[in-house]
């Protein structure tokens, strides 16, 4: 880690490589692993693969099967070795144990981050890839920017955005028109909000959606082939340069002006944080909005309750987050450990499926029932422990307003064809045709 920044025109200067990705951190493969050697998953207890396209559409059934088979921790040889706790207790325990489980990489892929990456405990995208004690220092820089009272004033802007997206759907005919609620509505909301917070140009929103796809969905491809990651690094570097020349009142300029323990921020750390905010804030919230609308399209009684009793949103919002939590995180085993009889080896992957924890019958009554006004709901949608999602207040605001405006405009809608779900650690609809049955004037 250096505390000086070489100007871009210095001979021989190479822009830093950013990000929590194999390409960003000089990947190494622990054992030769070729995804083509494996077919579709036939037994999730012994051959778990969240990258199997059949997993996300059926995940709640997979968790239930594992629980019924008394398998609290599944295993897989894929990705060079991976463990998957699925009960609330085991997910909670691993999330809290930062000594045996490092956050150095939080996206499972073919390769692991190599020694040339930013050294632990910083990682490629701090603070999500950081361990104690650096984690707390990096997190403390970001927390004030996402605190509840800083996020609340964004409500007006988010509402205007949602209304304008609905207006942009054009002339619709009740009972006939079909729109894609994931593509035409849900996905645009977090992209636009985080772009405005970071102070990046509006025309680049399409680019961000591609970056997110490269990072989170193409996990089974050969390291080094995900060219989008280089582009992402170069893009962020250009934005940092632009902010250096034209400082402004946004999150990027704020981060560039901060210090950690008296040391000026360098481009690697700022770039890693910006990538984290860009990647982590988009797919996740898009998924939560999409899944919530997917639920409402099939449950008019819950839809009606939200219209009749707007106050119920306080509870409904948390129930959407519990039942349709989009985010599964990951850890690497830091040192050999015996976890309840599972012989975990250093550098094994461990998935942290918070969505599975949210459906554990030992933690939640009738976990597979969506109860719109559930009163006791200690869900883990935003994680547990020191890595609690830093954008949770923003995500909640976007989810709440996105649902409110959609159901206000369309008092009735239904699914109209097959929903296509995402692949990988973020679970949500990527294409979701819905037929509009009623349009508010």
């Amino acid at each position, binding site marked *: 880690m250096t505390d000086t920044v070489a100007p871009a025109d210095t001979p021989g200067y190479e822009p830093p490589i950013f990000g929590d990705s194999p390409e960003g951190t000089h990947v190494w493969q622990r054992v030769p692993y070729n995804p083509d050697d494996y077919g579709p998953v036939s037994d999730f207890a012994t051959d778990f693969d969240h990258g199997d396209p059949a997993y996300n559409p059926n995940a709640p059934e997979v968790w239930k099967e594992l629980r019924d088979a008394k398998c609290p921790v599944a295993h897989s040889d894929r990705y060079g070795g991976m463990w998957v706790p699925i009960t609330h207790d085991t997910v909670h325990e691993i999330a809290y144990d930062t000594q045996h489980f490092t956050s150095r990489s939080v996206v499972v892929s073919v390769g692991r981050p190599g020694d040339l990456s930013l050294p632990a405990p910083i990682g490629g995208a701090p603070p999500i890839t950081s361990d104690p004690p650096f984690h707390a220092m990096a997190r403390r820089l970001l927390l*004030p920017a996402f*605190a509840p*009272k800083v996020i609340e004033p964004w409500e007006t802007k988010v509402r205007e955005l949602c209304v304008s997206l609905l207006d942009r759907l054009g002339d619709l005919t009740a009972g006939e028109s079909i729109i894609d609620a994931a593509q035409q509505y849900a996905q645009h909301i977090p992209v636009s909000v985080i772009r405005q917070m970071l102070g990046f140009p509006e025309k680049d929103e399409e680019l961000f959606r591609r970056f997110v796809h490269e990072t989170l969905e193409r996990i089974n491809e050969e390291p080094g082939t995900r060219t989008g990651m280089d582009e992402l690094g170069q893009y962020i570097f250009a934005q940092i340069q632009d902010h250096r020349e034209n400082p402004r009142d946004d999150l990027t300029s704020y981060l560039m002006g901060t210090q950690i323990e008296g040391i000026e921020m360098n481009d690697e750390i700022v770039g890693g944080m910006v990538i984290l905010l860009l990647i982590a804030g988009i797919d996740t919230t898009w998924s939560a909005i999409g899944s919530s609308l997917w639920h409402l399209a099939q449950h008019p009684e819950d839809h009606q309750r939200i219209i009749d009793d707007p106050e119920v949103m306080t509870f409904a919002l948390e129930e959407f987050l519990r039942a349709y939590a989009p985010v599964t995180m990951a850890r690497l085993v830091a040192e050999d450990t015996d976890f309840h009889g599972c012989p975990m080896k250093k550098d094994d992957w461990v998935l942290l499926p918070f969505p599975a924890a949210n459906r554990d019958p030992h933690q939640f009554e009738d976990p597979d029932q969506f109860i719109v006004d559930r*009163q006791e709901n*200690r869900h883990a949608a935003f994680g547990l422990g020191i890595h*609690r999602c830093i954008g949770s*207040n923003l995500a909640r605001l976007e989810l709440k307003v996105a649902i409110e405006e959609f159901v206000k405009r369309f008092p009735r809608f239904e699914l109209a064809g097959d929903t296509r779900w995402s692949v990988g650690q973020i679970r949500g609809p990527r294409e979701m045709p819905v037929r509009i049955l009623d349009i508010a004037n």
Partner: protein
Amino acid sequence: MLLRLDAEKCQGHNRCYALAPELFDVDEYGQSVLLVEGDVPAELHAKARLAVSNCPEYAISILVD
């Protein structure tokens, strides 16, 4: 009723502040702050229970009911 907030356990999920703003505030880092010293007024008992039973980190507890 007496409430206890364990600041070490609080990770800033912001659930208590959303459900019971009369009892909890948040600081500039989003960490929860207990507003009542001593006895929780009877009319806020239900809200206090809600805050307790929605904290994902089990950071809030009822000391005396």
